[in-house]
């Protein structure tokens, strides 16, 4: 796994996304939600990077920023050699086909007034010059690829089941032959029985088309199964990133440890090692994060220094990064 020289397809550096808060009669800006506050990571070609964290920690925001669905506040996002953080207009649109997204809620992510066929073929109109028949053929291929009957092309999204809808979402994401796909909790809204089907589909497609995934989820077991490497997020920042196996076996950051302690370990031999750590208190508001280490309000190992100094994002082992004052 470590032999081939790894080439980052996506490089995120010091990414920041602050949402302004408007208040009062005149709706003036009074502050900002620091949904993402300075994070850096790479996604290597062909891999699946898992992004985990509690609800509200900013995972989706990261995913959307990386695809430039937001105007980012700061930092750079380099995809395939181009920094897209500052691109706009036609340049950005030209870059879009390379990167796509699969959303959590397949219903909400499909325009209710468009048929499945036009949802899938719409990006083709924009980016490819195809005849109608070519388009129809392409739509058919895509529907085959995701396991949908071609005759459904004239139906509207609401006429499908959740699993089918997510397949439509995947088909349309694939339409422009992207290299990189952000999957934002693509299975969270589905029945457990269908989750496996969709995950398998994603894996098959990755193999078939050589896709690179940023896989966002709070289902830690699923991430372990799917991801090559895993990044853990807390309150707008990354706290630990490492090889999936290493991270799950030996989490270093107190937050990762707490998070993983709640997951039933598939390896009974290891089961005894990790005690369940229960975190006290609530997650602070991203509009007003605590000074120093953002985890310091809940960290069982917190010291005085944690409340003042923000821990640096350091490499603590081969390809293993973390942000904590007390990790060697």
């Amino acid at each position, binding site marked *: 796994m470590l032999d081939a020289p790894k080439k980052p397809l996506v490089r995120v550096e010091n990414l920041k996304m602050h949402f302004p808060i*408007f208040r009062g009669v*005149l*709706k003036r800006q009074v502050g900002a939600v620091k949904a993402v506050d300075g994070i850096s990571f790479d996604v290597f070609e062909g891999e699946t990077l898992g992004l985990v964290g509690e609800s509200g920690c900013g995972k989706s925001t990261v995913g*959307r920023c990386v*695809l430039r*669905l937001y105007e980012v506040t700061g930092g750079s996002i380099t995809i395939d050699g181009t920094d897209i953080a500052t691109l706009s207009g036609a340049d*950005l*649109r*030209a*870059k*879009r*086909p390379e*990167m*796509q*997204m699969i*959303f*959590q*809620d397949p219903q*909400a*992510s*499909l*325009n*209710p*007034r468009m048929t499945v066929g036009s949802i899938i073929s*719409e*990006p083709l109109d*924009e*980016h490819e010059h195809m005849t109608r028949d070519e388009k129809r053929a392409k739509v058919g291929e895509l529907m085959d690829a995701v396991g949908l009957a071609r005759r459904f092309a004239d139906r*509207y999204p*609401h006429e499908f089941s959740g699993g089918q809808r997510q397949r439509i*979402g995947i088909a*349309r*994401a694939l339409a*422009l032959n992207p290299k990189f796909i952000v999957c934002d909790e693509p299975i969270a809204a589905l029945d457990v029985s269908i989750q496996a089907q969709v995950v398998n589909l994603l894996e098959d497609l990755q193999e078939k088309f050589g896709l690179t995934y940023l896989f966002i989820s709070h289902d830690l077991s699923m991430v372990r199964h799917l991801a090559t490497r895993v990044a853990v997020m807390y309150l707008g920042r990354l706290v630990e990133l490492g090889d999936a196996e290493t991270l799950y076996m030996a989490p270093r950051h107190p937050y990762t440890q707490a998070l993983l302690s709640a997951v039933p370990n598939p390896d009974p031999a290891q089961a005894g090692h990790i005690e369940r750590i229960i975190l006290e208190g609530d997650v602070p508001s991203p509009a007003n994060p605590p000074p120093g280490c953002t985890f310091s309000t809940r960290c069982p190992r917190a010291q005085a220094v944690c409340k003042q100094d923000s821990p640096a994002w350091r490499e603590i082992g081969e390809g293993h990064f973390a942000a904590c004052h007390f990790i060697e």
Partner: protein
Amino acid sequence: MLNFTLRRLMFTIPTLLLISFIIFLILDLAPNDPTGNLPLTIPPEVRAQIRTSLGLDEPMYWRYLLWCKQFFINEPLNLLNQWFGWCIGDCENRLRVTSFLTRSPVVDLIAERMPQTLWVVGMSYVVGVLIALPIGVISAYKQYSWFDQFGTLIAMIGFSVPTFFTGVLMIVIFSVMIPQDSMFWLPSIYDTTLKVVDWPSFVQQMRQMAMPVMVLALFNAAHISRFMRASMLDNLSQDYVRTARAKGLKEKTVLLVHVLRNSMIPVVTVIALGIPQVFGGAIITEQIFKVNGLGQLLIIGIQNSDIPLVQTLTFLFAVLIVIFNLVADVLYGLLDPRIRYD
């Protein structure tokens, strides 16, 4: 959809009959008297005679049935006669719904007023919608920008400042303060007899419509732009909009094809539901500018206890409201594939 429409239409018939009866009942119970507005110099015996001649001595149910017959049978037959020259039954002496006040057929009075009401109130609705939609769209797209703030302010003014204030204000500015020979001077009194035959008379018509239309359009635009904005905001934050952006569509396409089309669904319904009000006229604005449309007709009817007139007008409004409710439902079904009535 067709079945649904037909079913609904069938259901409206008893509904409307009931409505017409209730209207009649309310009018009958109102402590009002068609001779009440006559000068005091008219002696009571004469008043009694007048009441008799108006048929007010008959029992209530009889007068209602008479109205039903006149309205549902005689009036349509008369229309056939007027439009196609078909004569069914005794078309010379057919008793039509007759106004107490003018002693002329109510339907003719209504027809006479339709043009100015449609011109002024209808135009103000169209203008209002045309102003409201872009304002709503831009306000939502640039939420909290100065444009949005300004739009909110205008909407607030439109909502809260009554038309009798804006109307008189405009008259004071455009008819009183601006000298009559200036090209910006606008007439404060609407000339219903003006016929548009050539360019100058068209200009004249535009000038006399300008103030009432603007006053009402502001009011209408205030409502509709808020709806448009809210609906746009609802949709702008939806995932499918992100999908559209992720597809690499032009921002214009995202906005106009994806967001706007979906946002229009509720707005179109609201617009359709508002159309009966156009026919209802704008009582106050019509009064201020002396447009003398349906609104003014209704108010005169009420003031003079002109029961047949008020009954017929109110009933026609009820019909329009019921119909446009149906239209709104059907439109909703047509626009939103998620809705199926059958």
